[in-house]
């Protein structure tokens, strides 16, 4: 048992080998191409999810009756891994871009939707009474109360969802597409190039880190800082 464990360590490529692999993949453009392919899918899927989940979440949060009926459906769909949708994605969209984007969309939709609903329903009713007192219209209530009040939680949800998308894109690419960092890993494994696998993994890690840093920066924007300072 211990011996086999040790053996598996032996199979890890050396640093020098990894450096060479990195240079190969970088210079022939594979690494950049794969990264861009993955990032593109994540971006499109994530934006689509955010564009749909935020308005739907705000509406549901402010309409408790509707939410009460829709919530079971959400809670039923939510625990199904986005990867479980792969067969249907491939059936509907075939192997390729659309399938991957569809899966990313599913991966980030609920992590954005659920916190948005919670944030919108949790706005203190007093703020709406102030809004009524100041005679806000629907549009002003949205712009001056609902959006800013929920923004800190929405940004947090977006950050989590982006992390999940980045996790899922690699898995999706291993099955449903023939490009991207996930595909690079599968392809390298099939060719028994563990050094390529490591390069891809490190790249995934670094990009994930950068994405998270970018999202954290957003949370320090002036307009959402109030939430941090409260309490």
């Amino acid at each position, binding site marked *: 048992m211990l011996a086999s464990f040790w053996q598996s360590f032996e199979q890890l490529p050396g640093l020098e080998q990894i450096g060479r692999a990195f240079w190969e993949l970088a210079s022939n453009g594979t690494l950049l191409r794969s990264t861009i392919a993955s990032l593109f899918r994540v971006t499109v899927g994530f934006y689509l999810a955010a564009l749909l989940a935020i308005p739907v979440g705000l509406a549901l949060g402010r309409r*408790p009756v509707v939410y009460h009926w829709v919530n079971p459906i959400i809670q039923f769909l939510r625990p199904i891994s986005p990867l479980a949708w792969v067969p249907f994605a491939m059936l509907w969209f075939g192997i390729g871009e659309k399938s991957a984007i569809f899966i990313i969309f599913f991966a980030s939709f609920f992590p954005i939707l659920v916190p948005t609903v919670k944030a919108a*329903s949790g706005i203190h009713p*007093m703020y709406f009474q*102030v809004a009524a007192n100041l*005679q806000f219209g629907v549009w002003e209530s949205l712009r001056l109360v609902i959006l800013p009040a929920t923004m800190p939680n929405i940004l947090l949800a977006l950050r989590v969802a982006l992390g999940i998308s980045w996790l899922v894109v690699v898995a999706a690419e291993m099955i449903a597409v023939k490009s991207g960092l996930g595909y690079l890993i599968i392809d390298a494994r099939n060719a028994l190039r563990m050094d390529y696998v490591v390069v891809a993994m490190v790249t995934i890690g670094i990009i994930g880190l950068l994405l998270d840093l970018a999202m954290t920066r957003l949370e320090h924007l002036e*307009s959402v800082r109030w939430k941090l300072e409260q309490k």
Partner: protein
Amino acid sequence: MNRNKICVDHVTVRYKNGRNRAWPWSRKNGSNGAGKAHALDGASTAILQDITLDIDAGEFVCILGHSGCGKSTLLKVIAGFIKPDEGAVLIDGQKVNGPQNDHVFVFQEGALFPWLTIIENVDLALRSIGNASERREKAQYYLELVALEGAGGHYPHMLSGGMRQRAEIARALAAQPDILMMDEPFSGLDYLTRLHMREEMLNLHAMLPDTTILFVTHDIDESLQMSNRLVILSESPARIKCCRQIDVPHPRTAVCPTLSEMRTQIYHHLGVHSAL
């Protein structure tokens, strides 16, 4: 003379199980606290019972009562946030059936929008003014009125509790209300700041003699120092226990015999039999 006269006419408010603005099954989500929801099971509890009260324009009325007796509820009925189950509130002969921007409410909990700066908060009450620079000037004027001219660019969380209260009062004043309803606006403040705020309220009322002020408080000295009239509510359900006119001119002092006798009476009404 009768302009902006408030008539609270036999108002009764109940919190009861069946009567609910939101649907009964949505109640467990617990989100919509705006309605008169979630009461004690089955029973309908009267909170306000047959309250009748006339208030003239320019009066400074303090509403006193035990915690939980229904002071905020009464004020919210007058503000149009809560619909009475019986009776009605008439302002200037018109039945109140919703909030209005010339009857402004200052909340017990502090209701500045934390995501806007102080001046942006005040600016919200001035949206009817089209001209941007004029608006800015007006907002600045109201901040100066409460001695916050330097704090316009700050967010509420950067200010002290007293400054936040003053900022909210500035926002309320900027709406140029005929009626200013204040629900324990000084409750979160330390004693010294409260004393300062009392003086500032009196100055404001002297400056705006037509503005009617309804002021809920626990603090008997506060009410004795500021108001023209005291309304004391009884408990569960709240009725008007007694109404007192206070004609002592400002500035009032603690040694004034009329006031100290009145204080003893009020303590007595509220069930306190020995106080300093």
